[in-house]
């Protein structure tokens, strides 16, 4: 029953299907470019505003609190936030350059995208999370010291156990959040690596070199 003509007919069947879209004009594309630029602009603004809120908040703490540890912790957190903002700016757009889409075959493009996502996730803790750790640690220590001093002044000294509980609770919360983010990233990295390996096997079988 099967014959070699059928695939030829499927060419025609596929190519002769009715069109459903009126097409895309250059004006449509220029309007889309404007929207694209606005989106990038507002994304950058959001990142900078988030950073500015952290800087403003900890600047207020540094001004408001008198304890040396609190001020030092605030300064370190501000420095961490500025460093993260710089990294976000340096790493730029998450989207590939338009020309890469045309210069790369599917195997090359898809692999480079997976590698880019894997590396971004693999290193995110070092430039997105770690910079906040020294500041938060010193700030927490400062808060604990301040709580003890304040309690002594009002004549109701906190026990060492209460202070230790406060510090441990706060630090544990931060650690749980950081470890959670790290584990999620690790899980995603493993999944991405499996896809990269699959592409590599296919490229090797196909005689295609890696990027």
């Amino acid at each position, binding site marked *: 029953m*099967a014959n070699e003509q059928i*695939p030829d007919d499927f060419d025609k069947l*596929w*190519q*002769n299907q009715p069109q459903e879209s009126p097409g*895309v004009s250059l004006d449509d*594309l220029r309007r889309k470019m404007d929207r694209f630029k606005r989106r990038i602009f507002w994304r950058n603004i959001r990142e900078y505003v988030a950073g500015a809120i952290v800087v403003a908040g900890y600047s207020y703490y540094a001004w408001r609190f008198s304890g040396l540890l609190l001020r030092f912790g605030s300064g370190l957190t501000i420095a961490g936030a500025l460093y993260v903002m710089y990294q976000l700016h340096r790493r730029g757009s998450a989207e590939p350059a338009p*020309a890469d889409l045309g*210069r790369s075959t599917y195997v090359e493009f898809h692999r480079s995208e997976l590698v880019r996502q894997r590396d971004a996730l693999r290193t995110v803790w070092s430039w997105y999370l770690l910079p906040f750790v020294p500041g938060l640690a010193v700030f927490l220590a400062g808060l604990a010291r301040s709580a003890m001093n304040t309690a002594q002044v009002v004549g109701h000294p906190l026990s060492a156990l209460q202070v230790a509980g406060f510090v441990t609770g706060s630090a544990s919360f931060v650690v749980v959040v950081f470890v959670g983010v790290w584990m999620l990233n690790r899980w995603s990295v493993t999944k991405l690596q499996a896809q990269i390996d699959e592409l590599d096997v296919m490229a090797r079988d196909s*005689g295609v070199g890696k990027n």
Partner: protein
Amino acid sequence: MMAGRDGLYEGVAGTYGSALERLARAYEADVEARRDLLQEIHFALWRSFENFDSRCSLRTWTYRVAHNVAASHVQADRRARSRRLVSIDEVDIADDRLGVEAVSDRHMALERLTTMIQELKPLDRQVVLLFLEGVDATGIGEVTGLSVGNVSTKIHRIKNVLMRRFQAGGHYGQ
């Protein structure tokens, strides 16, 4: 440079516009999302022509951009990620869900063909689509990055699947 970009884009949109629409149909079943995908493809093409360097043919460049955008769309789409996509080697030659009756109706045959393509992994989807668009094995290799031998093997398998799945349907061309 801008005029060059616009000129290149308009030429390609005229020549490959309908092929790009068919490509979008094979990557996205939802009508609204498909319209967005098609616009994304045209947008990426238009932007890419600013850096077109003639190291490959316009056809290869156009299909690379279109397929890379569409494959990224599949990668980013939660619905698509939750579905298990198969390689052409895993496709049942005779699909039990469809029964074994002859597929003689042109519309039904097209619908089944589209559904089958939408279930493929992006790379195999590209091979099938380019094959259906009449691109030869060398051209498919230039777009996908697969060797000609590997493409030929996949095409052989595709022909086999098409012949067996739509075995008594006759000619669908017109």
